[in-house]
């Protein structure tokens, strides 16, 4: 079995559904970080059978928890200090998301107005439905 060593300072995203780690890597902008990032795919898991894990050696504040919550709020976020887990962050669906998803409605003002931020509001928390603030169209972007 492959072993990836523990990190001293940073965070670990655990219980990522197998196969989703690369998508999360890009959505969270981890590709732009100048620090050590480890992506573990298809690790054995009691809960999920197979899971992905991402370990990042940098400050937790660089992580956009809102984006992560939208991607999958069941992912476990462990904050690591001095090699130990010091905090588990709970992911909560944000009430509003700015600049994360794009409205695909061709009739929406966001399709023509320059530099207008795409803003979505949480319309249905149970079904995790976000709608465009401007046109009320349901988000169809898979993250």
């Amino acid at each position, binding site marked *: 079995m492959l072993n990836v060593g523990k990190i001293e300072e940073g965070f670990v995203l655990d219980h990522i559904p197998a196969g989703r780690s690369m998508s999360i890597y890009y959505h969270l902008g981890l590709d732009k970080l100048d620090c050590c990032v480890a992506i573990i795919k298809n690790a054995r898991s009691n809960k999920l059978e197979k899971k992905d894990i991402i370990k990042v050696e940098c400050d937790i504040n660089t992580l956009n928890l809102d984006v992560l919550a939208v991607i999958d709020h069941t992912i476990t976020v462990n904050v690591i200090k001095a090699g130990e887990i010091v905090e588990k962050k709970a992911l909560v669906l944000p009430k509003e998301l700015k600049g994360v998803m794009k409205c695909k409605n061709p*009739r929406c*003002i966001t399709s023509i*107005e320059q530099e*207008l931020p795409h803003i979505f509001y949480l*319309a*249905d928390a149970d079904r995790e439905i976000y709608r465009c603030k*401007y*046109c*009320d169209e349901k988000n169809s972007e898979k993250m």
Partner: protein
Amino acid sequence: MRHLMNPLDFTTEELDKLFDLADDIQAHPDKYAHKCEGKKLATCFYEPSTRTRLSFESAMLNLGGHVIGFSDANSSSAAKGESVSDTIRIISCYADICAMRHPKEGAPMVAATKSSIPVINAGDGGHQHPTQTLTDLLTIRSLKGRLNNFTVGLCGDLKFGRTAHSLVNALVRYDHISFIFISPEELKIPSYLRDKLKELNIPFKEVIRLEDSLPELDLLYMTRVQRERFFNEEDYVRLKDFYILNKEKMKLAPEDMLVLHPLPRVNEISVEVDEDPRAVYFKQVQYGVYVRMALILTLLELA
């Protein structure tokens, strides 16, 4: 400062006050003839409209105010590529209040965020048309004496018909309202409205035939299939005459049912229905002026 983007921007209590004011304007027009002296309304219409624009202009003129504006995107700086945000900043320097119609959904909301004057959404794409809803509600309240306890039929283009969406959103706040949505399969109500009605436990059904539903209705809201909402002319031609309300069908409807229509009407209501006392769509137009007068006064804090 307040804007009007959505019929729900006003609580039902605020709507009652607005409609009381509209009633008073109707009863005592002279009292209000100079209320807006020295004030200017900018009508910024990025897509063609005669009725709504003229209704706003007529409302402001009745109040003693002035009107400036444009009635077509090609005659505005939008044709040069100016953004809505920039346009409203400019208009804010020229006028005291703005009524905006735009083919893009959410454009008036963008304007409102940058504006230093009240902005009224005068229709944004297939999304909202709040002043039409205020008109519809005032018409219903004036002619029926109430806004609750109705079975409301909405017929025609319920997918792109923003007036229908706005009316549904407004009526769900009153007690004992149920809906019958009458439309071809391709023009059914959008999913967000369906979801909302389910969530609020508002009874509704979706049907295709108008004739079957007519006997149950207290109000019938007819809508036009709008050519400008279709990307494909073929679909428009196929669906435009799907419903035609005529004298024969009106025989199936209750004696006290009201037929409303946001106008313009094309073929969906036969001209022979116009003489039926239940056809109130031309009365609606007059109520539209009263309610816009009341709205302008309210937003300018001159009521």
